[in-house]
């Protein structure tokens, strides 16, 4: 099914008699939901774009590429830098903004500008009964009633089908620079990232892979030059500075986990404390792309190491197997937390027809 309006989508959900697999572009979905495919790709278009108010309201099926193009023409962008995981996950198709929101897809700039959920101002969605619900709006600050906007971000279509999203956007900076730090081992290379994030120099990226640590600053030209200079003086190791498009290319690699795209093995996405990151990876004998100074680990490991990975992360964060035979494997939540999640799903989707099996 590929409804062209919110009303038609609501009718499709209300009249469904069997499970539905909700799909934007199918580029990020994890899991094996059974059921009839309900595509949101028919709901496209810009509802409102006010560059002067940094506000963008879109129908959920609008392709991400179109959104980014539209913003670029006004010298603006999405602050949260959503990853393109097609190469990593072996997917084809066109990513939609609804899919980005439904998976809370957030890239390197999260350390500075927050995740997708932090840029999300409002949503409209169709719940599992077919009712149309709106929450939040188009303004920057809104505490009117409960924040279902955050709840919907990352809910993977299990509470409702997004039909419209409202986003806060960001002006493109005048300049960007990346300090590339070489010659440090994993421990020291990650410590350098934490040191940078703890400095007053307003870091917008802190990542490490392939033996190099990367620290990004963005902003007005004079400010970028100043901060890059200050960081260069303070960081250990050999420091090279990349600017402009060269810097941007480095961050697309991190964002999309490009180093693992052509390599075999399980890929895990691990959220942890930056100071725990090196220990976790050492225990698993895997290879890591570290983002958020180590707070996010993309781990490539042998399939035989699954129990080891889960044990290494226990009590220090959580791990999701995003690529690998028989996957995905979602984190196991504490019983009382899982009960709240199950309770919400039962309320929003009482018939249990939405995306069963695509979340933990």
């Amino acid at each position, binding site marked *: 099914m590929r409804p062209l309006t919110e009303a038609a989508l609501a009718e499709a959900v209300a009249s469904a008699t069997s499970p539905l697999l909700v799909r934007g572009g199918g580029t990020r979905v994890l899991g094996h939901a059974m059921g009839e495919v309900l595509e949101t790709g028919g709901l496209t278009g810009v509802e409102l774009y*006010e*560059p*002067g*108010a940094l*506000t963008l309201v879109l129908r959920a099926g609008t392709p991400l590429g179109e959104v980014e193009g539209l913003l670029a023409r006004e010298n603006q962008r999405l602050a949260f830098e959503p990853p393109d995981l097609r190469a990593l996950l072996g997917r084809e198709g066109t990513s939609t903004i609804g899919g980005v929101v439904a998976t*809370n897809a957030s890239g390197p700039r999260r350390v500075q500008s*927050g*995740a997708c*959920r*932090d840029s999300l101002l409002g949503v409209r969605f169709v719940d599992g009964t077919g*009712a*149309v*619900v*709106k929450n939040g*709006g188009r*303004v*920057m*600050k*809104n*505490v*009117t*009633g*409960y*924040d*279902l*906007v*955050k*709840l919907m*971000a*990352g*809910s993977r279509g*299990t*509470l409702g089908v997004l039909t419209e999203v409202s986003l806060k956007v960001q*002006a493109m*900076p005048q300049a960007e620079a990346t300090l590339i730090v070489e010659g440090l081992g994993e421990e020291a290379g990650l410590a350098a990232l934490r040191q940078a994030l703890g400095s*007053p120099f307003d870091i917008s990226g802190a990542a490490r892979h392939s033996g190099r640590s990367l620290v990004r600053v963005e*902003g*007005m030209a*004079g*400010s970028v030059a*100043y*901060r890059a200079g200050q960081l260069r003086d303070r960081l250990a190791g050999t420091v090279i500075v990349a600017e402009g498009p060269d810097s941007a290319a480095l961050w697309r690699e991190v964002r999309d986990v490009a180093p693992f795209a052509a390599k075999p093995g399980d890929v895990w996405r691990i*959220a942890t*404390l930056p*100071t725990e990151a090196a220990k976790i990876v050492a225990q698993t004998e895997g290879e890591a792309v570290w983002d958020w100074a180590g*707070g*996010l680990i993309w781990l490539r490991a042998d399939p035989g190491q699954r129990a080891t990975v889960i044990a290494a992360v226990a009590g220090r*964060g*959580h791990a999701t197997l995003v690529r690998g035979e028989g996957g995905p494997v979602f*984190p196991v939540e*504490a019983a*009382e*937390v*899982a009960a*709240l*999640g199950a309770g*919400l799903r039962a309320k*929003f989707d009482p018939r249990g027809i939405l995306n069963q099996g695509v*979340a*933990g």
Partner: protein
Amino acid sequence: MDMPLPDHAILSAKARIIARLRAALPADAVIDDPAMLRAYECDALTAYRCPPLAAVLPRTTAEVAAVLRICHAEGVPVVPRGSGTSLAGGAMPSADSVILGVARMNAVLETDYDNRCIKVQSGRTNLSVSGAVEAEGFFYAPDPSSQLACAIAGNIAMNSGGAHCLKYGVTTNNLLGVTLVKMDGTVVTLGGPWGEPSGLDLLGVVCGSEGQLGVVTEAWLRILPKPEGARPILVGFAANEVAGACVADIIKAGILPVAIEFMDRMLISVCEDFAHAGYPDCEALLIIEVEGSAVEIEEQLAAIKAIAARHNPVALVEAADDAQARRIWLGRKSAFSAIGKISDYMCLDGTIPVSSLPYVLRRIGELSVQYGLAVGNVFHAGDGNMHPLILYDANKPGDLETCERMGADILRLCVEVGGCLTGEHGVGIEKRDLMGVQYAPADLEAQLRVKDVFDPKWLLNPAKVFPLAVTETRRAG
């Protein structure tokens, strides 16, 4: 403003309920003396008052859980309270409710500079969180005007903002995890210092739920390294509309100051008398603050001044030194109390799209004439969060009611232009009955279902946020 009639079964069981609370808590943690309970009869929305059945002041999560288990078993409503600074009546009790105050839970539990986070008990005041990490060069970003007094628990309940959230976001953007006690006494950990949900973003919906989903006893908060420096400038304009247009131009140019605050003539004069900050004498004033090193500050101010110059400013004052910068902020942050010295007032909190600023200011001026009540405007212009202050005389019969009708009209105006009823203060009892202006029945029903899951008996802060008629059957159990 209506509240449900108190439950007589609870009132008549008062002695038993208090005895059970006393048995579970240290002797000094249960208050039932009528004189002492007066301290809990209202929050900062002082127009409405009602002493509670009792107040409890636990010191630990276990004691909070014990209180909630007893109240859950007895069917007694519980009203959580941080420091009682809510402007929306979020902590106002009913006669049949127990106030659960977290003020004694104010410890720092863990400080982790390497991972840039701090774990505190929720009764700790906002400013003292920054105070705890200041020596290491860090701060906690959300800065509500009441930050000297307000508690993190209340900040989480209301998803509080502040003047500097233009750059740093509001509470929900700086909150990593909580320990939450549900109404049935179950202790739940949501999120954690890593700040990434492992499933549904339950932390995201707890933040801003106005104490209706659980009692937060501990919180992991993001702390940030302090910028090298900061400097506010004052730009005065001949008209409100011109100041509004200047704000839109700054944002459109891609400059992100940490704060852009707006004051109109009334507020400029009142705050200047209060703080002697050197505010210029003009119709409208912007306080624009930028951060960074000296060279970065100069770079940003040069760009801002160039934009301001296109709007024919009547005054442009840079803070000469730190002392003047502090006075400039003291004046702004004291705006409500400075107005409070000259009149009774009602403070609104609607948010509008920045582009609607000139239109909305003009309409507020017209409503002021229509209702015959003066209005002062002070607000966070960068994000469209308005704070119109309506002046009235509490001793004049009917004046409060007139003020409330005018306030409702202003909030309807905010929704009409694409905004919302409240940007950072919360709904509480104050805006409860206007929720239908912003949300359709299905939108409200979706929110009520969340409470059904966390608090199926509807005992936590039950008569708030939603119109009473909408929640009646649920509250009746």
